[in-house]
């Protein structure tokens, strides 16, 4: 790596200030699993790294009245071991488990993954179906928004210059919502997603309530399949209906053609995976009903 300063700020505000002071040649460093690789190969003009990974404002997993707060600098390894995540957001845990391997999950942070904003970011769909929100801190203070609004394009987020992703919030009403995540990669270990799919829904009797479908690696950013959701909303569960929703989800995505897979194959995967996560979510919801749990 080229010579580079390494700066550890004392607070989130200090981090923002240092970044602003150093200008565009400084870069915030989270887990480093993407950034350090980039710096080895194409350092550009980066001459300073501001390590935000240990900042208290960006750390920790807590349950509050609002819901579940995950600090942006929480690692995948930490999410996978956290009892609240295991209990209330098992599909976020499952998505975390599919990221890289043990070593990269112990370094890589959920926030870093979202900020990198690759279309295939594994955690995004699982968070999106739970109506997650994010908070940001920048020179103009804090702001909050739905996670969908955070993604702007491939490797492009809504972050303004010197602004940092601080927290991910999963609202109280979706904690424990029946949900399913499915990642399809080219192999089982250390796989990059060809397609990621997540679904969440509730059942009122046999009627689908608040369905959510999110897909990764199928468009420039992770997306919600809102038309497919609209088809399901308020309808009675039916195998054909789920497949129909999966078909609509295909039309809502714009998968690319690249060396990993063709567009056509990705479309087939989107349909199959969407149907499977919907089926699995329904299955979980039914199990809940049978157990007499009310959500």
């Amino acid at each position, binding site marked *: 790596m080229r010579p580079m300063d390494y700066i550890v700020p004392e607070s989130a505000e200090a981090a923002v200030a240092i970044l602003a002071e150093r200008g565009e040649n400084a870069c915030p460093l989270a887990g480093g699993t993407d950034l350090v690789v980039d710096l080895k190969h194409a350092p550009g003009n980066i001459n300073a790294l501001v390590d935000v990974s240990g900042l208290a404002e960006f750390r920790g997993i807590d349950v509050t009245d609002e819901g579940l707060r995950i600090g942006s600098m929480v690692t995948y390894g930490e999410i996978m071991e956290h009892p609240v995540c295991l209990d209330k957001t098992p599909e976020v845990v499952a998505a975390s488990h599919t990221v890289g*391997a043990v070593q990269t999950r112990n370094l890589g942070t959920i926030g870093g993954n979202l900020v990198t904003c690759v279309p295939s970011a594994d955690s995004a769909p699982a968070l999106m179906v739970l109506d997650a929100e994010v908070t940001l801190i920048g020179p103009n203070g804090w702001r909050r928004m739905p996670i969908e609004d955070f993604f702007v394009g491939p490797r492009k987020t809504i972050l303004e210059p010197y602004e940092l992703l601080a927290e991910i919030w999963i609202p109280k009403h979706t904690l424990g919502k029946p949900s399913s995540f499915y990642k399809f990669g*080219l*192999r089982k270990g250390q796989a990059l997603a060809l397609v990621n799919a997540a679904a969440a829904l509730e059942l009122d009797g046999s009627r689908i309530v608040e369905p959510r479908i999110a897909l990764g690696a199928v468009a420039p950013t992770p997306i919600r399949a809102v038309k497919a959701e609209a088809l399901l909303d308020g309808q009675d569960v039916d195998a054909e209906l789920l497949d129909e929703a999966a078909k609509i989800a295909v039309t809502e995505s714009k998968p690319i053609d690249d060396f990993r897979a063709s567009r056509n194959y990705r479309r*087939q995967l989107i349909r199959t995976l969407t149907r499977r996560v919907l089926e699995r979510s329904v299955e979980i919801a039914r199990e809940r009903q049978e157990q007499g749990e009310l959500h």
Partner: protein
Amino acid sequence: MKKRGRGMACMWYPIGFTVAANPSAATVKVNTDGTATLLTGTVETGQGALTVLAQIAAETLGLATDDVHVVSGDTDVTPMDTGAIASRTTYVTGNAIVRAAEKARDILFEAAAPLLNVKPEQLEVRDRRIQVLGFPARSIAIDKVVHHSETVLGNPAIGSASYNPPTVDMDPETGQGKPFNTYVYATQIADVEVDDETGEVEILKIVAVHDCGTPINPMLVEGQIQGGISMGVGFALQEEILFEEGRQINPNLTNYIMPTSLDMPEIEVGLVDNYDPTGPFGAKGAGEPTAVPTAACIMNAIYDAVGVRITALPATAERVLAAINEKRAEDQAVAA
């Protein structure tokens, strides 16, 4: 839906170079305490070659593996060797070592014969002793013989020899000839599951039964087979260097997809009981052939599972699904 299938493939594979000379030389010296030093020009590239070669030298001298120290891989010190290539080390270098160790042993037999009141040709080595054939009660510890030979008779127990597999050149018009001195054989059978909606192939198990002649070290042979299969699995399903106008587009381990521990199936290994009189103690070789039939048996298992014949490797999920869709379309056309 997941469909289960089984497929087998067998193969043959030669030991050594195609006709071309590929000699190995070796030097074996027995030390006065009964340990020995083996000099070989081959290099340990992970197979466990040096352990196998030590076992071959030890066997020839009636010693245990641990008694033999192997010096290798330095052109200033070690004799000529064609190297770690063509599954030739056990067979070719091993044969050279047997011959070199026999020369050292013959020096010891010469020294021991008068001590034991027999002729040299009446002697054999066993359990670190030189003993009379058919009358093991009369024997003498090997270290005493080495010491006697070296320090009293002035004849250190050292031998050098080389080996090159005998071949017959191939006719340029017809290719008829004897390009190799020996071959090994193997069968592998795969049990797979194919997801007919994604094309994903999961290998549940592979049974591999290989002939390597005498397994000099069965544990290391198993290691070769298991490792060869992992290379075969990658060749079958995942690995491919991709190009765009002559430029590799996936020259990294992120996008070149080799098997991880999660991608490898359970492997059951069997060895055929075989003895090749031309090899060292009946041994042939095990390195390369382990990777040969794996892809073939997996493709046959995919065929058994979903009825599609994959003709271009690797059988990525995308290719398998495309073949399944094509077959569905054909079946529908036939039905219509």
